[in-house]
């Protein structure tokens, strides 16, 4: 499999009233062609900032402190490499945005321009990047609308966003993202704002498109159900850092980081009995303006070691695909097992035929 995106040591910070917020701290990630990568984390864990950095969308109070985002793509049959962080906003617009990397946003109710027809919003990218004539763009727009499952595409082209339901709007947003045949599709919580029934349909649609086009997808989500359903590879973020990453099997069947344990334990499943209190991770995420010394998760971590309060743990490699940043994996650490309830749950999942929910 070809690697299409290599992120190394990415750090992003921004200026807030209280001081500097270090939103993303030393993120390493790889994305392979045709693969689905899920980035999981609570609000404020830096997942959105990470993908916006990939898109080159950096707000004026934001700075990229270090790192590299290397994008590899096939051009005329040859693999070429571009360092995205070296491109200016305008170069990103001309060369990358829309044509190579496209994005689907969280809230379809607000992410379409209310004053422009659906058709025009679909066509404008193609006319700009691919230099399509209006007729060509129209033809492809109709094709795209059909592909994303919008019936009566002819009529919908003339519609304005407010005339469409949330699910339909998200389909249009997906069609817009796909219009210039990108290699990477970034979906920033694409189903969070939708009804549960529509959520599943949108996820299926993205999977179907992926199968057809071989596009790579990055999902941002806090919904582990979504992760289990779509992801090949998972990165768990906490306080701007990736605390654990691995294949979907690594994360769901062999989680190593106490934060991942907490996340998995707090996910309701079919065997959760009504009288059982659903597990919640105690405390709340740290203030990113002045992070405590040591591991930012330590104050909420029932398994925290003394070392966790003194120094931030390095990332340990568990297997060729599986990494976690916790002192529990250090040779000097005591043997700590995941909570019993989670263990039995994983066992039930394994016997029940997998983590697919």
């Amino acid at each position, binding site marked *: 499999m070809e690697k299409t995106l290599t992120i190394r040591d990415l750090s992003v910070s921004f200026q807030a009233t209280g001081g500097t917020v270090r939103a993303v701290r030393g993120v390493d990630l790889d994305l392979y062609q045709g693969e689905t990568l899920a980035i999981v984390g609570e609000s404020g864990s830096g997942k959105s900032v990470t993908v916006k950095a990939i*898109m080159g*969308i950096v707000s004026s109070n934001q700075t990229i402190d270090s790192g590299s985002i290397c994008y590899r793509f096939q051009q005329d049959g040859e693999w070429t490499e571009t360092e995205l962080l070296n491109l200016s906003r305008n170069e990103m617009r001309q060369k990358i*945005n*829309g044509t190579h990397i496209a994005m689907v946003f969280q809230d379809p109710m607000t992410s379409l321009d209310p004053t*422009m027809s659906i058709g025009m919003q679909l066509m404008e990218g193609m006319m700009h990047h691919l230099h399509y004539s209006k007729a060509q763009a129209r033809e492809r727009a109709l094709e795209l609308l059909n592909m994303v499952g919008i019936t009566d595409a002819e009529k919908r082209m003339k519609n*304005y966003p*407010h005339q469409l339901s949330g699910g339909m709007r998200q389909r249009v947003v997906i069609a817009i993202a796909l219009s210039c045949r990108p290699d990477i599709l970034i979906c920033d919580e694409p189903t969070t704002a939708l009804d549960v029934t529509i959520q599943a349909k949108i996820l299926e649609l993205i999977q179907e498109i992926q199968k057809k086009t071989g596009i790579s997808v990055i999902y941002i989500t806090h919904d582990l159900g979504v992760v289990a359903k779509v992801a090949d590879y998972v990165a768990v973020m906490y306080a701007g850092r990736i605390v654990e990453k691995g294949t979907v099997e690594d994360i769901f069947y062999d989680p190593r980081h106490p934060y991942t344990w907490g996340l998995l334990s707090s996910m309701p499943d079919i065997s959760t009995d009504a009288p059982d209190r659903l597990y919640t991770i105690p405390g709340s995420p740290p203030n990113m303006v002045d992070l405590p010394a040591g591991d930012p998760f330590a104050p909420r971590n029932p398994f925290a070691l003394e070392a966790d309060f003194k120094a931030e743990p390095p990332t340990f490699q568990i297997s060729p695909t599986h990494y976690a940043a916790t002192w529990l994996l250090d040779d000097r650490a005591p043997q700590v097992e995941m909570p019993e309830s989670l263990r039995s749950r994983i066992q039930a999942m394994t016997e029940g035929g997998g983590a697919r929910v």
Partner: protein
Amino acid sequence: MLKYIAKRVMISVITILIILAALFTMLHSMPGSPFNDEKITEVQRANLEAKYGLDQPLPVQFGNYLKAMLTGDFGVSYVIQKNMPISELLRARIPVSIRIGLQAVILGSVIGLLMGILAALKRNSPIDTSATVISVIGVAFPSYVFAMAMSYFIGFRLGWLPLLYSTTEAMRSTVMPTISLSFFSMATVARFARTEMVDVMGSDYMLLADSKGISSFRLLGVHGLRNALIPIVTVLAPLTVELMTGSLVVEQIFAIPGIGSLLVSAIQFNDYNVVLAVVFVYSVMFIAVMLAVDILYGVIDPRIRLAKEDG
């Protein structure tokens, strides 16, 4: 859309009728009459009032007035220019007022819009700060302060522009009145444009449009401006009111033969018909602006356009 406009025109006609009726009653219940001259006797005054039908009961007078108005006859002036038909009086004056008003609103909105957008794009920069200062001054000072200041410095000290309106130099003599009147519109539009533009720039649809990689010109000009314009159009209607009231004073300062100065003298002299006619013209202009704003809304915002087609 047509149905909607027809409905709006109907409502406008009724509004104007109510305004006229209220004004008619108020004017006639004021003490005094157009013929408050110490030199004429009671008998002469009664004769004069009978001549113009002022001795009849108020509702009859109002009915007669409306009847005549429908044929374009606004009656004659009693005092200002004796027995001059008001339609003729207005004919020469309306174009002058409208010209200055239009120039002021266009100048004000265009410059205000540019200022506001620039301030929004360069937020917290010196450009933004100076735009804010100019807006605050523009909103805080009434237009006649600018009119006085300009006529002193530019008209009197520097002598660049005519101090008073002259028909032979119509263009040059409208410059100062236009600028002084446009300050308020400019300031208001600039403030609104800045706020709206900042809002729109932070919206999700701008983020999505940006992620398409279209040119920044198209991003701001097509997606940004159009959405920011919707609320800005709203302030245009109250701005015209300000222009009208502002013009009352500014026309006096520059001795402009417009309807604003006519109204002021008509009220001073109890010249009923002139007051009524000028207020009628003002009401029609204001309602026309409101209607235009409503239609403009529909043109800019498909949500309003389509909702109106349904209803």
